[in-house]
């Protein structure tokens, strides 16, 4: 406004009317001011409006300017407008005068929003649109587009440009942008905080905010800012620009900014799509490379393949464990291998053990206090002046409590995942397995035979591993015989050869049909309705880990199943 071409012409001066928005009418009334007129050659009409916290001064020729509305200043403004001096001065001088009489802050706002002399809105728009086309063509990433937004003519006095982006389905919203025109920023917000922020921006009519209005969204600058939300099927986004001061923004700026963001929307969309599909592809590539099974994706048209690190040339068609046609001409093959057992079944095994361990630990903690109470109580009673019979009972209570404590202790130690292995006797292994499987084999007649005094042999193996294998074999056998007529018999024979201890589990049940034998140790193969098909796979895997093996012995003369676990002698 300061250079508004406005040749003063005292002779033909006329008064113009000032229109006052009802919102600030009360302020005028307080000051006892009547709407008044100004002299102007162009018979320009001047209206003062309060919009948000700003005062707007509109001229009838379509030009306008604004300045911040502070309670203190409105008085100054109105008083200034009311003075005779004001009335006589050409408009440009009045506003220049006003600007000069207050401190620099107003001056800055004033000059930043006004159009240069002779410049018209259409020219400015042409320039903005040209710039937007240029920067969107130059930008190959969302962050560079956001940064270049500050080159758009009316945003050149801004210091910060950023977007907060939430891709639908993601757990975080991401802030991408540039602060102070050079410092790249990136941070993350919770989705619910972002949504609250997004909705406030969406509902706001003035689109002008201050950084402390959103405590959950920690913006990397202080001051007021302009914001505009954009939404599409795939994402929600808020674009933010700020000058880093605490002054609010003019209508021009808000309108220009909103229009800019609208113009940029298709470019945001394109860049987001591109960036995140790149990201997805590279993540997928990493996942496939590290996939714990040999894997190959064949392109049916070109004949080329993608293979991961575990794939070796030795693998053949027959090793394919899983095969699926995927999108387009591609086929995915997964190969069965040692890795399958190592990776997948270690995990199953570990989960099982740790769950049981947790359970037993809780049980131990919950029981140990009351048991201790019982023990202390019975000890004290035993030393009191009571009959010998009662004393005996007290001693028995104490003994039983001790036994309970030992049992709980043993069980929870058994199911701890141990890394150190202590030497353990075969007998201990067999006994533990039988205790664990006791309820399952109630109806089965069991015989245990140790050959060559094998019971006292010491093995250096993790007790829990071996117990689990034997437990598995016993339970399998008992379940197979469950609906069988006649006596159910199971025998455990423990023998040795030169390097191994052999533990044979035999029963007189239905046995395993010949056609099922080849699948016996394959994962997910089961004959039970409730089975996982992992028991035997896990067991063999454990046996192999300990340097032993687990096999099924076929003897055509014998009825029933016969498994043999071999473990290396120490």
């Amino acid at each position: 406004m300061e250079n508004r071409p406005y040749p003063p012409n005292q002779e033909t001066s006329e008064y113009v009317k000032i229109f006052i928005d009802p919102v600030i009418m009360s302020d005028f009334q307080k000051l006892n001011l009547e709407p008044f007129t100004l002299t102007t050659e162009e018979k320009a009409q001047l209206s003062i409006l309060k919009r948000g916290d700003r005062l707007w001064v509109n001229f009838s020729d379509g030009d306008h300017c604004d300045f911040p509305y502070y309670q203190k200043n409105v008085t100054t403004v109105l008083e200034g407008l009311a003075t005779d001096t004001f009335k006589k001065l050409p408009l440009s001088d009045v506003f220049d005068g006003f600007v000069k009489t207050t401190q620099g802050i107003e001056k800055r706002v004033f000059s930043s929003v006004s159009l240069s002399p002779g410049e018209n809105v259409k020219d400015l728009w042409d320039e903005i649109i040209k710039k937007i086309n240029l920067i969107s063509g130059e930008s190959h990433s969302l962050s560079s587009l956001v940064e270049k937004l500050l080159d758009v003519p009316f945003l050149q006095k801004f210091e910060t440009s950023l977007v907060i982006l939430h891709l639908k389905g993601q757990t975080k919203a991401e802030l991408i942008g540039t602060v102070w025109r050079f410092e790249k920023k990136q941070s993350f917000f919770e989705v619910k905080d972002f949504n609250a922020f997004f909705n406030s921006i969406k509902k706001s009519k003035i689109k002008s905010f201050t950084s402390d209005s959103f405590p959950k969204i920690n913006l990397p600058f202080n001051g007021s800012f302009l914001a505009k939300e954009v939404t599409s099927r795939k994402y929600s986004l808020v674009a933010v620009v700020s000058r880093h001061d605490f002054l609010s923004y003019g209508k021009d700026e808000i309108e220009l900014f909103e229009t800019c963001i609208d113009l940029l929307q298709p470019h945001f969309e394109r860049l987001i799509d591109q960036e995140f599909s790149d990201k997805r592809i590279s993540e997928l590539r990493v996942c496939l490379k590290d996939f714990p099974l040999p894997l190959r994706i064949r392109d049916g048209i070109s004949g080329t393949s993608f293979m991961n690190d575990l794939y070796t040339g030795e693998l053949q068609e027959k090793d394919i464990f899983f095969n699926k046609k995927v999108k387009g001409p591609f086929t995915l093959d997964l190969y069965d291998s040692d890795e399958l057992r190592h990776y997948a079944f270690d995990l199953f095994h570990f989960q099982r053990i740790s769950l049981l361990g947790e359970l037993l630990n809780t049980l131990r903690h919950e029981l140990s206090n009351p048991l201790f109470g019982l023990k202390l109580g019975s000890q004290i009673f035993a030393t009191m002046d009571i009959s010998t019979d009662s004393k005996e009972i007290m001693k028995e209570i104490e003994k039983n409590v001790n036994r309970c404590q030992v049992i709980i202790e043993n069980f929870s130690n058994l199911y701890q995942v141990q890394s150190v292995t202590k030497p353990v006797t075969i007998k201990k292994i067999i006994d533990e397995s039988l205790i664990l499987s006791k309820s399952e084999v109630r109806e089965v007649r069991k015989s245990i035979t140790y050959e060559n005094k094998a019971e006292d042999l010491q093995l250096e193996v993790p007790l829990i591993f071996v117990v689990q294998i034997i437990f598995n074999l016993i339970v399998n056998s008992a379940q197979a015989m469950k609906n069988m007529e006649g006596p159910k018999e199971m025998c455990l024979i423990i023998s040795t050869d030169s390097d191994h201890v052999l533990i044979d589990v035999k029963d007189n049940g239905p046995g395993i049909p010949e056609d099922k034998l080849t699948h016996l140790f394959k994962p997910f193969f089961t004959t039970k309705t409730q089975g996982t098909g992992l028991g035997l796979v896990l067991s063999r895997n454990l046996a192999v880990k300990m340097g032993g093996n687990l096999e099924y012995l076929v003897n055509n003369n014998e009825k029933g199943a016969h498994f043999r676990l071999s473990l290396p002698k120490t």
Partner: protein
Amino acid sequence: MNTILIIEDEILIQQSLKKLFERRGLKVDVSASGKLAIDLILHNNYDRIICDLMLQDISGFDVIEEAKRKFSPEEISQKFVIMTAYNSPQVLSRANSYKCRLLNKPFDDLEEAMKTMTE
């Protein structure tokens, strides 16, 4: 040593210990709740306080913290005996920070435990 306070919410343990101390001629107060125990500590002068860590309302450590209003750190370390069934490293390191005696439940040797508590 004349008076002793037992803070333990397992009544069997609490009463058994009470009997044991009374037989040795001590005057014994008991509390199953941490809050009541704090009240007792602030209004009485105990020579020894046996404190379980896992109480129903607050933890034994909270009781010790409250007792700091009355006792110096030296007095805390002498008066308090901590009893616990959960000897995780975290619990042990916190218990050690008070420099007081620590007893694991269940007691391996009752006589030994009594000695620790009354010495």
